[in-house]
């Protein structure tokens, strides 16, 4: 394989992986922007979303697309509920209390999945029964000599489309405006007649829906479902959010892509280092925290006048 083809192959892989990280990272960054809370259960919400899709498809033999939609909606509902039950009572408590609760929520969801769904890994591809979907999974396209699975393209396109919708919601819609206002000043937003808890709940639902979408695409590419599958992607996405500048949505995209590219390219150009692939992400995190703690696109907190 010549250099260019090799590069192209990895480029698409990196784009896909980075996009998936970015989708999860957005959930961290939106919640942080509003509540200054790192929702450590976010990766586990992604895992729950994948299980929702898996069981909807397997138990009700519904087509994969329907299963995905049900799962995304289910995850949104779960995110909303987690905020109501676990975080809302702690809105006025010290931030550390909410943070510890988030870690607890993460353990709870993982244990819940072990008990209810079982700890054994399940092949996600079981949800694809029709011929068409098998074609989608296995078809390979030739791009400039590189063999790129059709699935990779679909994931990249879908990720782009989701981000387009997300940016419309956050920057053009009314509720998006309220979300941004809350991230600047909660009491004043309430003075505008806006139900702040409702908007916060919406933010959790939105972030969780994106995590589930990412998780489902993840499971199509790395096809096992298990209770701890949310941990590493969640960790990476958290790093992506911090590297990009936590609280900034464009930052989460940049951070996610950066992490995806670094991970794929270090492993493919230095195969002997592949055992350290996860370590690279953490090294990036340490470097950013040392040299630019506010992240690539993060702003220093604006002093309120």
């Amino acid at each position, binding site marked *: 394989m010549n250099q260019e083809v090799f590069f192209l192959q990895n480029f698409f892989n990196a784009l896909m992986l980075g996009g998936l990280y970015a989708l999860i990272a957005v959930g961290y960054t939106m919640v942080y922007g509003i509540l200054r809370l790192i929702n450590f259960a976010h990766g586990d919400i992604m895992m729950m979303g994948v299980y929702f899709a898996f069981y909807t498809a397997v138990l009700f033999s519904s087509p994969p697309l329907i299963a995905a939609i049900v799962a995304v909606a289910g995850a949104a509902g779960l995110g909303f509920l987690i905020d109501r039950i676990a975080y809302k009572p702690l809105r006025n408590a010290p931030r550390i209390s909410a943070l510890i609760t988030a870690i607890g929520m993460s353990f709870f969801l993982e244990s819940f999945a072990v008990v209810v769904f079982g700890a054994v890994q399940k092949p996600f591809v079981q949800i694809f029964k029709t011929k068409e979907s098998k074609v989608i999974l296995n078809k390979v396209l030739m791009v400039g000599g590189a063999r790129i699975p059709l699935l990779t393209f679909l994931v990249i396109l879908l990720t782009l489309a989701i981000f387009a919708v997300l940016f419309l919601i956050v920057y053009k819609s009314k509720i998006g*405006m*309220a979300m941004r206002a809350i991230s*600047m*000043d909660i009491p*004043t*937003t*309430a003075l*505008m007649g806006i139900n702040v808890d409702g908007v916060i709940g919406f933010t959790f639902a939105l972030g969780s829906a994106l995590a589930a979408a990412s998780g489902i695409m993840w499971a199509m590419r790395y096809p096992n479902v298990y209770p701890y599958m949310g941990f590493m992607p969640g960790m990476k996405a958290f790093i992506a959010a911090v590297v990009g500048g936590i609280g900034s949505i464009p930052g989460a995209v940049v951070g996610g892509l950066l992490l995806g590219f670094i991970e794929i390219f270090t492993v493919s150009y230095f195969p002997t280092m592949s055992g350290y692939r996860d370590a690279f992400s953490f090294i990036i995190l340490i470097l950013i925290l040392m040299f630019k703690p506010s992240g690539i696109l993060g702003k220093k907190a604006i002093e309120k006048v």
Partner: protein
Amino acid sequence: MSEELVLKIEGLHVYYGAIHAIKGIDVKVPKGKIITLIGANGAGKTTTLSTIAGLVKAKSGKVIFKGRDITNRPAHLVNKMGIALVPEGRRIFPGLTVYENLMMGAYNRKDREEVEKDLEWIFELFPRLKERLKQLGGTLSGGEQQMLAISRALMSRPRLLMMDEPSLGLAPILVEEVFDVIKKINQEGTTILLVEQNALGALKISHYGYVLETGSIVLEGPSKELLKNDMVRKAYLGVA
């Protein structure tokens, strides 16, 4: 008073932890008037407004708005009923544009045409805001931010407009402009509850005033009379 009351506060007590911030005050705001609360720093003026707005909980007493008890309702519901607050320090959303800041004020309104009309009215009141619609709120000067804060509150078409120290930190020429605008807004039909440390300015444009000292009302009366009152002149107007 036989006038129709927009707001009535009865025996209001507010605590911050162990601190007794408001010690049983009674305030009446008749329709169409400007009522002012004056007093020094820490007298409880901001606390009173925050309690009405639903940001701070009352321990006892009542806040009655147009005949309905709204004591301790959450802030967003108080706003929906028709009370808007221009908070102390303006509290513009710095990362939203001037236009978005204005639309935050009109968040719950469905009457788009009327919102447009109100926007035009606001541009008449503050022509400078129209020039700056696409600018971020945080980039405005202090005076412009105050105008934006007032406009944002007006965009909800409040029955009662409460203002917390609108003249604070402004250049003298702007202070006068702000008081003129308050008067104008009132003349066009909005009832106003004004909190000020600038007692002279507030008493000049208001109809009735209350003097607040460490959480209690020590004096009240028509603003014209308060302006002549010896104690007010000594303590708040700096005239012997």
